[in-house]
């Protein structure tokens, strides 16, 4: 009985662990896209200019 409970608890924590890691990775991805495609810093804009236009990210 206790063993099943422990197994269940560890399964749940693993799942939570996976969700946290996946969400962190997705947030990192959004951050990268945000900097490349949406930054107002002029040098970043000019460096990624052709990429922004080709991806139809709003541009100057």
């Amino acid at each position, binding site marked *: 009985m206790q063993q099943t409970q422990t197994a269940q608890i560890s399964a749940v924590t693993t799942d939570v662990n996976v969700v946290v*890691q996946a969400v962190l990775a997705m947030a990192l991805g959004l951050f990268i896209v945000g900097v490349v495609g949406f930054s107002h810093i002029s040098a970043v804009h000019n*460096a990624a200019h052709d990429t922004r236009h*080709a991806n139809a990210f709003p*541009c100057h």
Partner: protein
Amino acid sequence: MSVFRSIVFSAVLAGAITGAAITGAQMVGTIPLIQKSEVYERKAEAPAPAPTAAAQPAQTHDHGAAASPAHSHEAEWEPAEGLQRNAFTTGANILTAIGFALLLAGIFALRGRVVSWREGLFWGLGGFVVFTAAPGLGLPPELPGMPVADLTLRQTWWIGTACATAAGLGLLVFRKASWAAILGLGLIVLPHLIGAPLAPAGHTDVPEALSHSFVVAAVLTSLLFWALLGVLTSIAFRRISRT
């Protein structure tokens, strides 16, 4: 290997290949059109009073002030024409691809089972709808030198539309109930009922045919980008997370 590392490794691998491949497609598709358009943009910027700023002096007062630094290309750093500019474009394409691949691989990890390359393809096509088709309906891909609305307003509408479309598609695909179908469709339609920020009526020298070709080229390259990214990320994540 930890889930986070598997996601990052597969995203970097798939993103690097997709970013490099898409740069090749852009070299023949969008980039020549951007360069042609910049000839008109420079011509329009050359005379002392900028025609777009002179057209609406009162109404777009702060917009003009906000837009002018972005327009005065001479004042700010920009990559040198040729190799340097293309190197930065390649880098930006690879980073964008890695960023979106992190989203895809994160989703694949959350699925909790093996995602086939075909399923990866459909996730990629979902990305195309969310990040290209839906925002592009209101804000079509634009060439440099076209009259545009305030940048922050457009970015806000773009991000809002992508979020609403993603939520709407998610409800349509993953919830079987009829309320979910209605709410999902509603979420997809809503940003377009609100409407994208409109460009002020202004004159542009960029020919209609050139901007039409650009819309077609940009949408097709984006379709290729998402299809490739979806397939490659699913294959890379499957292989890497197995080790």
